[in-house]
């Protein structure tokens, strides 16, 4: 069973945190800090498995992590999951994000946290792996997004396309200007 999925950047700022077991808010933050502390100390060419810290459960739990550019993807699992299998799962997750966001980068995760949650919900449910087929996941997520869009613009579906042609470029902190086909989000 997967106990928690955390994404944070090189400075420890959380970009996504999903716990499949309940902890209170302070404990959750402490876990994130502790995990960051353990993972950031690791060298580049060591193995991707760490024994879990004290907070999240002690000896049975392992941290399996992967480092992509500025982000750490950490899955905290217990002994019923295969370590190498989880590594592959992280890879599939990142590839799915890449497909959904078109060359995903950290900014996408920052500004579309809810979308990432939705994608994750199609992959992992209740701490167990639900679906690993990338195309299947993307199909489901797209269908649900379409439902959302149709709700907000029930009579003005033509203005949807108008909106997208006028979509702005995201300046962002890094000064990156890119026309992105951002999935509509009205929240």
């Amino acid at each position: 069973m997967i106990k928690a999925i955390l994404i944070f950047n090189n400075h420890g700022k959380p970009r996504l945190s999903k716990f499949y077991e309940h902890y209170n808010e302070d404990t959750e933050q402490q876990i994130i800090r502790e995990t960051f502390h353990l993972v950031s100390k690791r060298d580049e060419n060591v193995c991707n498995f760490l024994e879990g810290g004290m907070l999240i459960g002690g000896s049975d739990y392992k941290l399996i992590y992967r480092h992509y550019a500025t982000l750490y993807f950490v899955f905290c699992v217990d002994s019923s999951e295969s370590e190498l299998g989880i590594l592959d799962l992280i890879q599939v997750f990142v590839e799915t994000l890449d497909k959904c966001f078109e060359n995903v980068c950290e900014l996408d995760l920052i500004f579309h946290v809810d979308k990432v949650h939705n994608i994750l919900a199609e992959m992992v449910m209740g701490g167990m792996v639900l679906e690993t087929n990338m195309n299947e996941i993307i199909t489901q997520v797209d269908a649900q997004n379409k439902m959302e869009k149709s709700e907000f613009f029930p009579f003005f579906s033509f203005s949807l396309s108008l909106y997208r042609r006028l979509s702005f470029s995201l300046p962002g902190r890094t000064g990156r200007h890119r026309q992105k086909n951002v999935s509509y989000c009205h929240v």
Partner: protein
Amino acid sequence: MPAPIRLRELIRTIRTARTQAEEREMIQKECAAIRSSFREEDNTYRCRNVAKLLYMHMLGYPAHFGQLECLKLIASQKFTDKRIGYLGAMLLLDERQDVHLLMTNCIKNDLNHSTQYVQGLALCTLGCMGSSEMCRDLAGEVEKLLKTSNSYLRKKAALCAVHVIRKVPELMEMFLPATKNLLSEKNHGVLHTSVVLLTEMCERSPDMLAHFRKLVPQLVRILKNLIMSGYSPEHDVSGISDPFLQVRILRLLRILGKGDDDSSEAMNDILAQVATNTETSKNVGNAILYETVLTIMDIKSESGLRVLAINILGRFLLNNDKNIRYVALTSLLKTVQTDHNAVQRHRSTIVDCLKDLDVSIKRRAMELSFALVNGNNIRGMMKELLYFLDSCDPEFKADCASGVFLAAEKYAPSKRWHIDTIMRVLTTAGSYVRDDSVPNLIQLITNSVEMHAYTVQRLYKALLDDISQQPLVQVASWCIGEYGDLLVSGQCEEEEPIQVTEDEVLDVLEGLLVSNLSTPVTRGYALTAIMKLSTRFTSVNRIKKVVSIYGSSIDVELQQRAVEYNALFKKYDHMRPALLERMPIMEKTASNGPTEIVQTNGEAEPSVVEAKHPPPVTQPTNQANDLLDLLGGNDVVPVIQTTVPTKPASAGGELLDLLGDLSLSGIPPMTAYNKNGLKIDFTFERANPNPNIAVITIHASNSTEADMTDFVFQAAVPKTFQLQLLSPSSNVVPTLNQGTVTQVIRVLNPQKQQLRMRIKLTYTHKGSAVQDLAEVNNFPPQSWQ
């Protein structure tokens, strides 16, 4: 009230904050806006507000006031609202809040919704955080969805069922009929989650396990199709067809095949096939191989297959990828108990892993190395492990040190090697050894009598170098205290004896007392050592001075010791040599637990020992003095406290003695004294474990019409015996044989001479004191042979 800002705006704003305080301010402002918006019951923007709240929750700020709002969102008709509402419920709510029960009805409605995505959301939320009450209420709905033909819902329902079973194990039977045709699905997602469901059910209940064993052929077929089918674009991951499903099936096969011959046999072929056909260049292939190896190890596979598995692990060990090496070490650790010889073949590779830079790999390699140590490779392995101990991180040192001690104890080829190894550990990792290793070490040293001089010399030299490592210092000071005379007289045979004077030794010990590096415990050891040297060295005055100084020490423990030792010098000087003489060899007791087990030719017979544990000694000392007065001058010996020896020296003879103990009634009782209405009977037992001790129980009975009060029974034996008298049951012998007074006598008869005893009786009868003396000579031969 203007429309609340969008989530993206909020995020952008927060990112412009430069300090934590600024960020907190912004968030608080936004929280206030959200709260007032909630109060206005604004339906349009509720989901926007909750989304912002969830973001702030992720950053660590309190968001509990949004819980009810999540519920309102869930109850809304719009999909967008529901989506955010359910997400909020999963992040903010849990079974500890009463609020969550309000969700039950909403979820129930949504589980029957017309849109599959809404149903999916409901299943997802229930599967993540459903409490046991919710699960009980909604299990029926979940079960219904498990049978639907919609594969999207089916797979979610399967995982939801797993969660329900985890929360409410009694409901497992409910899902049994639905599992009938789960495995005939084509959709891999459903297959995957079905296998997870089956795995969960099998792990929880042995009945289910037996029931699902019949599915083994079907699983094998599915696995075969996955391997044999060519390239299939929809399930392909790096060239292998749905590796996740393969791994899951292998895991289920492992559970089903464990301990069952038929199932294991059905699986042998497919496992061999997977093991040989899978490509190992990418991580996915290795993941499958890893799972296969674990399965082969757990089920009752044929030996050829097991050898194949261990060879795969050996190949993993040589792989460059650290992850692969890590999993290989982990699995080898699991299999080393059962397939010890096969793993031994890879010993050199494992020992190489000790030198790896990666902390996780080093730890695994260390544990595995300790598991592989045996009598043959102890010298080589110990060299490597000691080298590792020198260079490893502090977090490993404690475990490594204890491991080294254990291994050395079990397999030491010679006493000298053992002591050398222990010295090496103490000097390199002295501050990390566990506390109980100091007494164990001391015991080991006392037991190796011929090595005393060598040991004390080496410890002395180590002490000269370094006094910071407390366990080393404690052991060293204890040894110097015990064997200081050997040190000074330069008797060492094993190595070049060093010239040490008494003053130098005392200098070192005094140095320990004053040093800042010594803990109070160490100081205690040092003071006691100095005291012991007073009987072994000639310069007693110096020792007296040191001891008297510490009589006013601030440390209470030290002060008490010093004061008592001072008293030893002054009032009890005659007892000092006896008290401070060499410690006897300490018997080794089982290191875990107080029970002592008698080893006879490798067999332990604890039950017999337990029954015969000697009673505690409760001999009042004034009886001894009386007897001395009474029988002084004869060839009798006063009563002496004999501490009962706890273990005989091992020999096959014990077996006979133990068997001999079982015949209690072999020795007939006898009447020792019968006069004036007082009758004293002796009954016999043999004490265990020492066969030389006869345990006699006297029974005193009174046939007159008046009680005998203040009844005292005393006994004396010839010099070659030793006698021990325990307390009587009472000192009133009731009249007319209404009861007896019993008392236990233990006689040690090492020379097996004929038992003789002189007894003295005093009591008050009818107001007058009566005294009588008698000799008992009619002991039955069995009592002293």
